């Protein structure tokens, strides 16, 4: 070791020197007052810095951050399912379209507007379908199946309603 550089002295105070290097440094320091002074100054810097005190953050900081987190989470809108809204809207538009088409006045060539032909057609169509509908449900087997399905549907609806009611009560008791 030719010269005790600052780098070596820094390694010395950090305990990064090999045993043989450490022995050389100690030997060199005994003979070199200038190197000893530098080492002493570095040790003084090291010990002073070890006594650095942590500064106190403002007391209100925790409250401020938690408040910001809370208001940010409230600002997030719950996800809305638009599936049923879309279906109902489309259905309503469809029904509205049929009604408008049925009652739309037509030009009969004599500048006389009338909705009668469409109304007659609609009556005829409904009457025909109503007869087919009555024939279908006059079958005993069909009636049995429909009755069972209706019963199942009613029971399911009742159970769902009860479950929803008890969940609402539970939620109320928590909050």
């Amino acid at each position, binding site marked *: 070791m030719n010269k005790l550089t600052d780098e070596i002295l820094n390694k010395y105070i950090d305990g990064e020197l090999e045993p043989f290097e450490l022995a050389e440094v100690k030997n060199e320091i005994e003979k070199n007052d200038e190197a000893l002074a*530098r080492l*002493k*100054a570095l040790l*003084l*810097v090291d010990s*002073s810095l070890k006594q650095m005190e*942590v500064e106190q*953050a403002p007391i209100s900081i925790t409250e401020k*951050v938690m408040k910001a987190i809370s208001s940010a989470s409230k600002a997030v809108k719950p996800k809305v399912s638009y599936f049923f809204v879309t279906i109902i809207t489309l259905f309503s538009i469809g029904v509205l379209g049929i009604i408008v088409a049925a009652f739309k006045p037509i030009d009969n060539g004599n500048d006389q507007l009338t909705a009668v032909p469409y109304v007659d057609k609609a009556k005829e169509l409904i009457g025909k379908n109503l007869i087919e509908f009555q024939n279908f449900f006059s079958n005993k087997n069909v009636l049995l199946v429909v009755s069972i399905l209706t019963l199942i549907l009613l029971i399911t609806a009742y159970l769902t309603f009860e479950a929803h009611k008890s969940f609402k009560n539970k939620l109320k008791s928590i909050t």
Partner: protein
Amino acid sequence: MRHLSDIEIIESIKRGNASDFSLLINRYKDRAFSLLKRILKNEQDAEEALQDSFLKTFNGLKDFRKDAQFSTWLYKIVFNTGLTVLSSKKRKIEQEMSSIDEEFDLGNYDNEIYGTTENVRQYILKMVDKLPVRGALVVILFYMDGLSLNEISQVMGTSLVNTKVLLHRSRNALKDLLLKHNYQEEML
């Protein structure tokens, strides 16, 4: 009450107990504030940056990996937030932070501080604030927060070698001042 580890608190927050984040704030706010005050040299800016840092930390918790050290991750956010605020205030941050070849000559501040301090410890601690930002931060993270050089290099995004060079340069700059005033004689 049992002392919860950082990871246990984070797991609890991820399960929906957002209020547990206050435990992490209380655990790290003073150290993070000390670091920010050193970067920004202004109490109000440091407080705002601290608040911003914790909000960023909370929002990033979902991406936090269990195998990482929370304190290192948090200090990195604090460090980067501090630099962003500093940069927005146009304090020549790019020139100051782009390399480790910063000006470690503290002679300009020496006369002013030497005349107003009572002892060597006070003198050194005041001179730390006059070190170039990176040098001061390495000193703070190493001595005050007890981070290893490896952790500091992760926080500051510098190589391990450069981090060590910064620490040595900071100590040497302070050492030179002590030699100038013969403070080493106080060392038995």
